[in-house]
C-alpha cells in the first residue's frame, strides 16, 4: 500500500467518523442547482434578444454573468444601497422595501467594491445557510433523514428558485424564518427571537413567524390548537407561564425589526406607515382574496388557452397559489398546525391585494418542501417532482433574464 493510498484511507475514515450529512446534502443541492442556473440565466440572456424597451436598465452591462441577476425589484434595492431611501405618496418609491437586505449589502460593499456583487454574495450565502437550517428542521420535525435530503433539493430547484440567487430578499427571508422555526422547536427561545427579529426587518410577512414561535412555545407547554378544549392543556399552560415566562418575554424582540424601520420612516419621512403607503402605489388594492382570485380566474376563462390568448403570469401565479393552499391541510396533519397556518399566511397576505408575484412569494413557504420531502419516499415521485421543478425553473429563469416580469 502506498503512502498516498494510506493517506486517502485515513481521510476517508475521518469523513466517515463525522456525521456531515447536514452540510453535505444542502451543499450538494446548492452547488448543483446554482451551477446549472448560472449557466441557464447567462445562455438564456444571450440566446434571446430580450425586451427592448426604454425603461430596461442594466446594472452591470460590462459583466453579463452578474447583470442577469439584477432585474425589476433589484433596481429598488440597488437604489437604496447607493442613494438611500426615498418616499413619495403618489408614486412608487423605495420605502416599500424593508431594510435588512439593503443594510447587509451596504455593509458588505466595501469588500466587493460594488453593490450588485455584494448583493449576490449575500443572496447566495444566505441560501446555503437556509438550506442547512431547512435540512435540520425537517430532520427534527419529520424524523427522517432522507426526507430532509429531498426537502433541500425541492427548495433549491423550485420553479422560482432563481430568485434565491438574484438581488432579492427571498434567500435571506428563508434563512431567518427557517432558523427561527428551528430554534423554536428546540425550545431555544432567545435564538428564535433573534432570527424572528431579523425576519420582521426583512419583509412584512416576517411577522407571521411570530405565530410559529408563539405556537411552538404553547406546544412546548402542553397547549395546542387541537387540545385547547381540554382543561389539562390550560393547567399545563399556566404552569408554563409561571416557569418559563422568560421565553415568552424574549418573543417581544420579534417585532423590533419592523418597529425599527417604522421609527426610521417616522423620523425621516414623517410617517411610520410609509412602507404601506409606498406598497399601495404598486397597483394593489385590498379587495380581499375572493375578488382577487375571482378576477384572475375570470380573465383566464375569458381567454383561450389553445390560441395562447391567456395572461401567462396569471396561470403560474394561480397555480402557485392553489398548489400551496392544497397542501395546507396535509401540512397541518403531518407537520403541525403552526406550519400550516404559516404557509397559509405566506400566500394569503399578498393575494389580499393582487395575484402578482405569487410564484415568488410561494417560494419561501418552506413547510411545502418538508411535506414533499416526506411524501416522496418513492423514488419515482421524487424524480418526477425534481424533473418538473427543474424544467419550469429553467424556463422561468430565461424569461426573467430577458426582462419579462415573472414575480
Amino acid at each position, binding site marked *: 500500500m502506498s503512502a498516498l493510498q494510506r493517506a486517502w484511507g485515513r481521510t476517508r475514515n475521518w469523513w466517515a467518523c463525522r456525521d456531515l450529512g447536514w452540510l453535505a446534502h444542502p451543499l450538494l443541492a446548492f452547488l448543483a442547482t446554482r451551477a446549472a442556473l448560472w449557466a441557464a440565466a447567462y445562455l438564456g440572456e444571450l440566446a434571446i434578444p430580450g425586451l427592448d424597451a426604454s425603461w430596461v436598465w442594466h446594472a452591470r452591462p460590462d459583466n453579463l454573468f452578474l447583470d442577469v441577476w439584477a432585474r425589476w425589484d433589484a433596481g429598488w434595492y440597488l437604489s437604496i444601497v447607493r442613494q*438611500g431611501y426615498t418616499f413619495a405618496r403618489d408614486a412608487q418609491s423605495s420605502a416599500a422595501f424593508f431594510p*435588512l437586505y439593503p443594510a447587509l449589502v451596504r455593509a458588505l460593499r466595501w469588500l466587493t467594491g460594488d453593490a450588485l456583487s455584494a448583493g449576490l454574495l449575500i443572496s447566495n450565502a444566505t441560501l446555503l445557510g437556509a438550506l442547512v437550517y431547512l435540512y435540520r428542521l425537517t430532520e427534527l420535525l419529520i424524523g427522517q433523514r432522507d426526507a430532509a435530503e429531498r426537502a433541500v433539493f425541492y427548495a433549491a430547484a423550485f420553479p422560482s428558485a432563481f430568485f434565491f440567487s438574484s438581488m432579492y430578499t427571498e434567500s435571506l427571508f428563508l434563512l431567518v424564518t427557517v432558523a427561527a422555526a428551528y430554534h423554536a422547536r428546540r425550545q431555544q427561545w*432567545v*435564538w428564535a*427571537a*433573534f432570527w424572528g427579529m431579523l425576519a420582521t426587518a426583512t419583509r412584512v410577512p416576517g411577522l407571521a413567524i411570530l405565530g410559529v414561535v408563539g405556537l411552538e412555545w404553547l406546544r412546548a407547554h402542553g397547549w395546542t390548537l387541537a387540545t385547547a378544549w381540554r382543561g389539562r392543556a390550560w393547567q399545563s399552560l399556566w404552569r408554563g407561564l409561571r416557569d418559563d415566562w422568560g421565553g415568552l418575554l424574549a418573543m417581544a424582540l420579534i417585532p423590533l425589526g419592523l418597529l*425599527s424601520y417604522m421609527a426610521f420612516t417616522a423620523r425621516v419621512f414623517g410617517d411610520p406607515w410609509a412602507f404601506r403607503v409606498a406598497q399601495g402605489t404598486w397597483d394593489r388594492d385590498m379587495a380581499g382574496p375572493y375578488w382577487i382570485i375571482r378576477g384572475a380566474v375570470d380573465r383566464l376563462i375569458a381567454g383561450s388557452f389553445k390560441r395562447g390568448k391567456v395572461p401567462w403570469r396569471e396561470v403560474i401565479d394561480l397555480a402557485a397559489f392553489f398548489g400551496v393552499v392544497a397542501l395546507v391541510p396535509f401540512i397541518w396533519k403531518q407537520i403541525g398546525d403552526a406550519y400550516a397556518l404559516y404557509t397559509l399566511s405566506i400566500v394569503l397576505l399578498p393575494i389580499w391585494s393582487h395575484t402578482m408575484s405569487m410564484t415568488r412569494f410561494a417560494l419561501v413557504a418552506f413547510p411545502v418542501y418538508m411535506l414533499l420531502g416526506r411524501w416522496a419516499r418513492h423514488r419515482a415521485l421524487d424524480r418526477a417532482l425534481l424533473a418538473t421543478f427543474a424544467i419550469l425553473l429553467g424556463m422561468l429563469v430565461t424569461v426573467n433574464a430577458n426582462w419579462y416580469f415573472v414575480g
Partner: protein
Amino acid sequence: MMNSTPEPNRRERLRIWWEVWLPLLLAGLALVGLNLALYLKLAPAAP
C-alpha cells in the same frame, strides 16, 4: 481526579450562556447595527 466531562452545573452555565446571553447579545448588536445602518447609510442624502 481528572475528569473530561464537565460538571453538571458548569454544563448548565455553558448552556445558559449559549442559549440566552449569546443570542441576546447578538440581538442587541443586530438591532443597534440595523438602526445605525438606517440612519447613517440608508437615510436619503441631504438635498
